[in-house]
């Protein structure tokens, strides 16, 4: 399987008043076609920022200082960080899309579900929809008799829709769509969009899609909202889906439903998923491979079964041990998360690491492949490969 997206040595800094926050320092990971990669780590270790970097949507004082993000899209491999805004805008939502953590705030409160999803459709799949509207129109013309008035209206409609499919950016049509009564020609397009919206809502296992489409976000429950958010993310059949803790704010039963939904949709749509979470249980449930992050860098990447069976990095080990289990003493990781303005030198985990050596505080360990597809960045293992 080939790599769909590869992040190489990503460095992200925030220039704040207190100092430079070294938020990401050498993130290395890749997602293969059709797989789910779990990105796990504690709060504030840069999981979400890694996800947002793929979209080049880093919030204000943040700047990407180095690294590459290679995306293998329809037209060959693209480097996303150096792409211009126009290319990014055509990729966002169409090839790469995102599911947010808090579904209630990821939906715009002033639009109905239909309008929110329709926006994505009209932004990226306008041509397709215009074509289907045009087909419907042709059918109507063939069925109905071409009486004087009807025939005239049909003729006008056909002219407009033909122009729409030929010149999607035509200025005169943009103006036309702003004139009341005249802009009713868009009714057909809207019908076509609605059909698609209802279809995708049904895919999301929403019981009454026709009714839900007309509802406002605050009228829906959390689980339903998250389904709508997922519908928006999947509406253009993206190659990569970045899911940023999509189930964290939901209760456990809904969480299970959403997880099985994501699993099923992944199979149907053939998308790859970058699943960001801090929940090892969810990782075991849904992921094929796992990348463990600590304080802004990836420290271990492995197959999910491999990681649970044989974790190599001391942090990954500690993380797995800190999952509470009945009948076992609860172990926490000693110490606290480092301040990223002034992070520890060398390996950022060394002040908390039970196996810390002299070299750990001096040099940053490199990512090395210990076994097949099992990478780790730790000085403990660098000797073996030498």
């Amino acid at each position, binding site marked *: 399987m080939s790599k769909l997206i590869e992040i190489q040595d990503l460095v992200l800094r925030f220039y704040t008043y207190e100092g430079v926050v070294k938020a990401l320092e050498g993130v290395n990971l890749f997602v293969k076609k059709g797989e789910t990669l779990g990105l796990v780590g504690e709060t504030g270790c840069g999981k979400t920022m890694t996800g947002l970097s793929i*979209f080049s*949507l880093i919030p*204000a004082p943040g700047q990407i200082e180095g690294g590459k993000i290679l995306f293998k899209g329809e037209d060959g491999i693209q480097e996303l960080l150096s792409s211009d805004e126009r290319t*990014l*805008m*055509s*990729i*966002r*939502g*169409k090839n790469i*899309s*995102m599911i*947010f*953590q*808090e579904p209630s*705030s*990821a*939906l*715009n*409160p*002033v*639009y109905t579900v239909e309008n929110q999803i329709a*926006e*994505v459709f009209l*932004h*990226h799949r306008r041509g397709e929809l215009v074509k289907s509207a045009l087909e419907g129109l042709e059918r*109507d013309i063939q*069925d*109905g008799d071409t*009486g004087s*008035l*009807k*025939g005239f*209206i*049909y003729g006008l409609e056909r002219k407009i829709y033909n122009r729409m499919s030929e010149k999607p950016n035509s200025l005169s049509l943009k103006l036309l769509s702003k004139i009341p009564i005249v802009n*009713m020609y868009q*009714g*057909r397009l*809207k019908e076509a969009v609605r059909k698609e919206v209802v279809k995708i809502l049904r895919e999301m296992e929403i019981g009454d899609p026709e009714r839900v489409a007309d509802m*406002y976000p*605050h009228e829906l429950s959390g689980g339903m909202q998250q389904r709508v*958010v997922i519908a*928006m993310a999947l509406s253009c059949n993206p190659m990569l889906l970045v899911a940023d803790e999509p189930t964290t704010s939901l209760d456990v039963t809904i969480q299970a439903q959403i997880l099985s939904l994501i699993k099923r949709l992944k199979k149907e749509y053939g998308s790859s998923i970058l699943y960001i979470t801090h929940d090892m249980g969810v990782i075991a449930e849904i992921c094929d491979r796992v990348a463990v992050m600590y304080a802004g860098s990836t420290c271990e990447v492995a197959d999910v079964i491999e990681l649970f069976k044989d974790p190599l990095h001391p942090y990954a080990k500690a993380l797995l041990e800190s999952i509470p289990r009945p009948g076992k003493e609860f172990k926490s990781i000693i110490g606290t998360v480092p301040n990223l303005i002034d992070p520890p030198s060398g390996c950022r985990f060394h002040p908390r690491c039970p196996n810390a050596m002299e070299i750990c505080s001096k040099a940053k360990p490199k990512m090395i492949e210990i076994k097949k597809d099992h990478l780790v960045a730790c000085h403990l293992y660098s000797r073996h490969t030498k």
Partner: protein
Amino acid sequence: MGVKSWLRNFKTEIGPTLKELKFMIGRIKKSPLSVMGVGILAFFIAVALLAPVLAPPGHPSQRGDSYRMPQSGWAAEPQPPDENHPFGTTQWQYDIYYGTIWGTRTALRIGFMVVGGALAVSLLIGCLAGYYGGIVDELLMRFTDIIWAFPGLILAMALITVLGPSLDSIVIALVLVGWPSYARVIRGQILRVREEDYVEAAKAVGCSDFRVIWKHILPNSIYPIVIMASLDIGAVVLTAAALSFLGLGPRPGYADWGQMISFSRAYIYKNAQDPLGYWFTWTIPGIFIFLFVLGWNLLGDAFRDILDPTQRRR
């Protein structure tokens, strides 16, 4: 089929709007004060629309300008109401009835133009400052502060003096003085909404900056400004009347409530036997101004309850 499908389209197109309108009317009906506000404004709008019927122009002294109050004679002393002049006359015999009716048009025009102009300026500046932040924000907001630092009425008077006294000058001056308060509120609202997840989501879907601002940020931040604006229409008319009272308004004889009150400046007190003998000169335009401002204030409150989608469906 064709016509039918068009009718169907029309229905689906207009249906939600009608539903919202029904909902709005239902909400207004529930609160007596809102009903009053709407009633008062409906009255004024009706008066403005029907002005040519209620007070037909065509008096020779108007010289074809229907906004000029008809003048019967040059006598200085105001005349009490009689059958020719239902509300009496001002000094120099301008008809008060005609002036108040056509003055309604003037008041509405001032209100809408000033508030509309101020909104347009402040939307542009507030959106740019709030959305882009950084140096753009700093420059635009410090400029706003400079305007804000001047006493509004004095700055407006200075501007009118420069532009030359007229109704248009009043409108321009009030727009230039009035926008900073809106711009600040819009900027604040945008700063709040900009951080919401759905804005990030819109960007992640591939929306352009303009689309993000216009479709996602503004609909969520515009309500406080709409309420402010509707409250301000009344206040603006009051300020315009004050400026006009000070002699900075349109030329004498123009149908304008402020000017009519300024005409009665010398006729508030008649004499010891009949101190309120000239009551009609200042009470009648005064009542019109009072009701107009009251109507807009009540409507502003009603708007707050109706328009904000996060508050309305309670």
